[in-house]
């Protein structure tokens, strides 16, 4: 398989998320399946990724405000998808060279950036959802 850059990989993942978000409500309606946050279920504390399912579903339905209200990170992922698609196309056409590995410094800086973003998202979710009673039963399989 052709090697992809990190934005392209995240872009592909984002497209998968969009596809999943488009069909997920039908799946939950038919099966009562759910993907609870393990951290929130076990401890009552939300995690930085809480609300992403709601946000993704809102976004594919065109509800930007609802998506941002549930988890603004989804807008970042949507941005990466928009950035990655032309990149993917240009690379497929051979207009740009294969991706090069990032330097250690670039990786470290990106890692710090991602960490700070996760921290900001965590604070947002703590503000939005607060700390609730744990409910480990939610993690038990339900059919």
């Amino acid at each position, binding site marked *: 398989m052709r090697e992809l850059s990190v934005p392209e990989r995240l872009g592909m*993942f984002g497209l998968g998320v969009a596809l999943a978000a488009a069909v997920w409500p039908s799946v939950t309606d038919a099966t009562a399946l759910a993907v609870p946050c393990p951290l929130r279920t076990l401890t009552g504390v939300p995690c930085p990724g809480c609300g992403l399912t709601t946000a993704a579903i809102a976004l594919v339905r065109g509800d930007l405000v609802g998506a941002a209200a549930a988890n603004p990170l989804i807008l970042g992922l949507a941005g990466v998808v928009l950035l990655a698609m032309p990149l993917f196309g240009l690379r497929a056409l051979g207009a740009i060279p294969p991706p090069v590995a990032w330097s250690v410094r670039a990786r470290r800086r990106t890692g710090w950036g991602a960490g700070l973003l996760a921290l900001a998202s965590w604070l947002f979710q703590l503000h939005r959802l607060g700390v609730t009673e744990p409910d480990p039963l939610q993690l038990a399989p339900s059919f």
Partner: protein
Amino acid sequence: MNYAHWGSRVGAYLVDTLVVLPFSVLAVVFGGMSTDAETGQVSGPGPLYYVFIVLAILLNGYNRWYLAGKTGQSWGKKALGISLVNEATNQPIGAGKAFLRELAHFVDGIICYIGYLFPLWDAKKQTIADKIVKTVVVSA
């Protein structure tokens, strides 16, 4: 080293899940909870439920711990042409370490499953569990 793509790893996991899925379905169909039509009382899972769940765990253990540990390939990884190896030696990691890696996946899951997304951007395409037990998944 030619590290396996995230998509291949997800595909392998789905195949491994499909292998045990029939047992989970059978457990629910033949041994799941039932409601008494007259009293409305809900009874707990019957013995067949536990039989099928144990079979599912045994099959999963054979596939994902024993086979993946001994040969580097569970059925799913074999189907997708990828292999689980030690980061330093490039050799299969053994059943014990494969089991520990499975336990370490708890860390990948507890942070809203973000640990499972690490291969999308990590230099060695490792999950957090891979980093803990020092393994990589490579193209076979």
